[in-house]
């Protein structure tokens, strides 16, 4: 039989440090929830985390938990529990997996971190609909279930240029959260602490950006699949010194790879941009598929969504509002096209893969003709694959494989 070629994934040594930082983070959250020493807030991924940190909350990110459910391939067993209580299989599979996990009393944290038995019970739920309306419904369910308040920011959508009017709106909404959060935290907001959190968040995201930009090198020292793992501190610990310290270590390792001419994929022959969510339960499989094809998926919109250059020590609340509004997902198609074209040029991309995630229309930019427009303007070929972030019932592995193999073949033959 013709043997399948096997590619080995190159270990990033900084991962050991990241695992320790993440363990400390989860144990810290657990301690806060179980001892009551600190109040716990749940926050959506690009919600006002800096504000919560400044008020002394331990912050849990349900989206991070949901991604863990996906990556551990447990989500598909949990989603039906949420479906059964009326949450459609067509809505966000982060939401359905996370609620399903709660209903079944399951968390991957328990297995990964001995001593932790459940996700930390919240004192308050805070959302920002810049991601989607689903996050608000997600928090609303827990609010009803756990009897804790759910408060948040309703962001505008399809924003072309972020104007003062947009920023004023979101600034006022963030400011309106403060009295409620102060009441729950039992402290007044210390503006110096908020300035510090915003400042640290900016430094973290600038380092994360530098990490992502190491992929400009040929061969790229890092892949999108690595990035989805290593972005964890930028998601849950931005605004802390640990995240900054971590990215300095990671950056140094990647820069060393560049100096040594070591690519994440041996014999890199094509460079691919990934637009959309990762398929969490298929990270390894996809990583190996591309590596076997000597193709590096090296840049993405998704992993770049934790870069916030607008955080400003001098004006923390307004700069938070601006940073959250500048997020790719909030923006107009015109902006998105321009952004993707810029990324193609910056990373010298040979082809784009759009992941059309069945349950995440907000992160699937393949549904309104954008791929065709970008392809017509740039001449860079694109491929749309059907899949999902967490619900593996919505994925055909064989069709995905055939599509990707044919796409890389097309790129190779087009040269």
């Amino acid at each position, binding site marked *: *039989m*013709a043997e*399948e070629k096997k590619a080995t994934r190159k270990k990033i040594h900084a991962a050991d440090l990241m695992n320790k930082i993440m363990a400390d983070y989860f144990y810290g959250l657990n301690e806060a929830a179980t001892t009551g020493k600190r109040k716990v807030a749940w926050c959506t991924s690009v919600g006002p985390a800096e504000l919560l940190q400044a008020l002394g909350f331990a912050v849990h990110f349900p989206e991070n938990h949901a991604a863990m459910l996906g990556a551990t391939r447990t989500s598909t067993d949990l989603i039906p529990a949420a479906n059964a209580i009326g949450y459609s299989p067509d809505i966000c599979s982060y939401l359905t997996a996370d609620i399903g996990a709660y209903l079944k009393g399951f968390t991957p944290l328990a297995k990964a971190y001995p001593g932790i038995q459940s996700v930390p019970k919240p004192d308050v739920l805070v959302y920002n609909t810049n991601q989607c309306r689903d996050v608000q419904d997600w928090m609303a369910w827990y609010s009803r279930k756990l009897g804790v308040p759910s408060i948040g920011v309703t962001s505008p959508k399809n924003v072309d240029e972020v104007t003062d009017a947009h920023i004023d709106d979101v600034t006022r909404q963030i400011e309106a959260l403060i009295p409620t959060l102060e009441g729950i935290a039992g402290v007044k907001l210390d503006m110096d602490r908020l300035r510090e959190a915003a400042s640290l968040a900016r430094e973290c995201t600038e380092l994360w950006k530098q990490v992502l930009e190491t992929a400009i090198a040929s061969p790229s020292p890092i892949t999108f699949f690595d990035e989805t793992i290593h972005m964890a501190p930028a998601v849950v610990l931005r605004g802390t010194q640990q995240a900054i310290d971590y990215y300095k270590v990671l950056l140094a390792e990647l820069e060393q790879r560049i100096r040594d001419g070591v690519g994440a994929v041996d014999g890199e022959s094509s460079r691919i941009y990934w637009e959309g969510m990762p398929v969490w339960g298929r990270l390894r499989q996809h990583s190996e598929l591309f590596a076997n094809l000597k193709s590096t998926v090296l840049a993405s919109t998704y992993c770049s969504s934790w870069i916030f250059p607008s955080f400003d020590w001098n004006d923390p609340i307004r700069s938070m509002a601006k940073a959250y509004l500048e997020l790719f997902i909030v923006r107009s198609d015109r902006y998105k096209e321009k952004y993707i074209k810029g990324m193609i040029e910056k990373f010298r991309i040979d082809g784009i893969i759009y992941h059309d995630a069945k349950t995440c229309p907000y992160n699937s930019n393949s549904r309104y003709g954008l791929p065709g427009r970008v*392809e017509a303007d740039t001449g860079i*070929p694109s491929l*749309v694959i*059907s899949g999902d972030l967490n619900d593996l019932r*919505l994925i*055909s592995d*064989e*069709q995905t494989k*055939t*599509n990707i*193999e*044919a*796409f890389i*073949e*097309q790129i190779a*033959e*087009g040269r």
Partner: protein
Amino acid sequence: MSTPVFVGLDIGSSRTKVAVIGADRQVLGHAVRKSGTDFSATAAACLDESLEMAGTRRDGIAHAVSTGYGRANVGFVTAESKTEIGCLSRWGRDRFHEAVTIIDIGGQDNKVIKLDGDGRRASFKMNRKCAAGTGAFLEEMSLRLDIPLEAMDALARQSLEMVKLGSYCTVFSATEVLENIRHGKKVPDIVKGLFYSVVKRVLEMDSHAGRVVMTGGVVAHNPYIVEMAGEMVGQPVILPEYPQLAGAIGASLYALDETDPVGIRNNIPAGETNG
């Protein structure tokens, strides 16, 4: 040793197809069988049948390339494999010297491949996960209607008043078919409606550039589908010689492209000479 031949093996989800070509790129032999559960054995049987038709044996093979879902399951092929999209494009590049859109209707998936005027693959699309518009859809309907697959083409041609089916979903389409039977619709009208549904689904998958060519087992056995497609796109659609073998011929052309004749002839396990 006889004149070298070049072999393409297309192990599809439903049927295995083998094409044998000579150095002049003409088809010398071919075979089609149900893929079944033992892809390797089926491929071996198809290979021997097509070689016999070509008047040669395995030691005459200069090179072979496999494709299709089972392309990694061809036990005796040590040569590289190619995707079916690549093979259909290679076939199209060889047969047409103009921009064409190849629409391939296979057992479980459909493909629309656009080649530019230089024969380069400009883009391709496969159907999403569902079976609408595929051979599997027609097989399911033939079972429901208890009509042999091979009788459908002639039946559809008898239709005077086609039944239109609306659903994307094979299962819901079956419900629609049953509903039409209950309402006394004639079988030819229902079968034509099924054909129309297939054509509509595949034509809707992508825009078309240049002339349209249809390939695959479904159109090989139901040429009326090609005629219907021609009416819908407003120009005659090309039904090539050997429509079901297009992918296999493309694979054999890749084999011919190879300069290093390392093919399969030295790698044939003794037990695999007969299927």
